[in-house]
């Protein structure tokens, strides 16, 4: 289970809505399955300012900076999120093939209905997907 304080949950959803119609992505840091910080990352895919609607890649230097910041704060990268702008919140084949962090919960936010974003969590270990509960703490 991944627990997210509602205010941080909202930050994550806002970031996804801001990047719409491109895919958004970000990192959740914290400890013991509890999110303490949301890093809003840019989607560096396809080189355009606004990213891509079908792919995301975190900018490599931004990723380094965030990794360093998480280490300095003695936290862990416990979640990795991205949005699906027109499809269900379920990992695609590309998501599975590129899931290199078995210890993180992959959170996918579907904006199929933008008035009602739906977030789901998964572990992806050696291409096997297991749902992981997301609990939004009020």
């Amino acid at each position: 289970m991944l627990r997210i304080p509602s205010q941080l949950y909202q930050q994550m959803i806002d970031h996804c809505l801001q990047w719409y119609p491109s895919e958004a992505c970000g990192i959740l840091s914290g400890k013991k399955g509890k999110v303490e910080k949301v890093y809003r990352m840019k989607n560096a895919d396809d080189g355009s300012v606004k990213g891509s609607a079908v792919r995301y890649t975190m900018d490599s230097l931004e990723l380094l900076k965030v990794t360093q910041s998480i280490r300095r704060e003695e936290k862990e990268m416990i979640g990795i999120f991205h949005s699906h702008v027109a499809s269900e919140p379920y990992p695609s084949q590309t998501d599975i093939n590129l899931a290199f962090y078995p210890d993180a919960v992959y959170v996918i936010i579907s904006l199929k209905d933008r008035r009602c974003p739906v977030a789901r969590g998964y572990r992806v270990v050696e291409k096997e997907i297991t749902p992981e509960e997301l609990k939004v703490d009020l």
Partner: protein
Amino acid sequence: MSVKVRIPTPLQKMTKNQAEVTCQAATVTQMIDQLEKEYPGFKDRLCEKDGKLRRFVNIYINDEDIRFLQGEKTALKSGDEVSIIPAIAGGV
């Protein structure tokens, strides 16, 4: 050339749970070969069969991505900090 190498969580199982190891190497290629000697199987996680760095593995020397330097041929200096960070990417 003694450098410090930061190991990402997903690869720490191979380095006996060490988040940081030191290594004697003059280039990134030598560093990878050195790590392979110490932790068999490590190179395979970073490189394709032809020895080229995998597309979804980022290696940085201090704060620079080696793709913007001389790639695997980039020289290392004593005291450099090398970070290995798997990319985070996906798509619909």
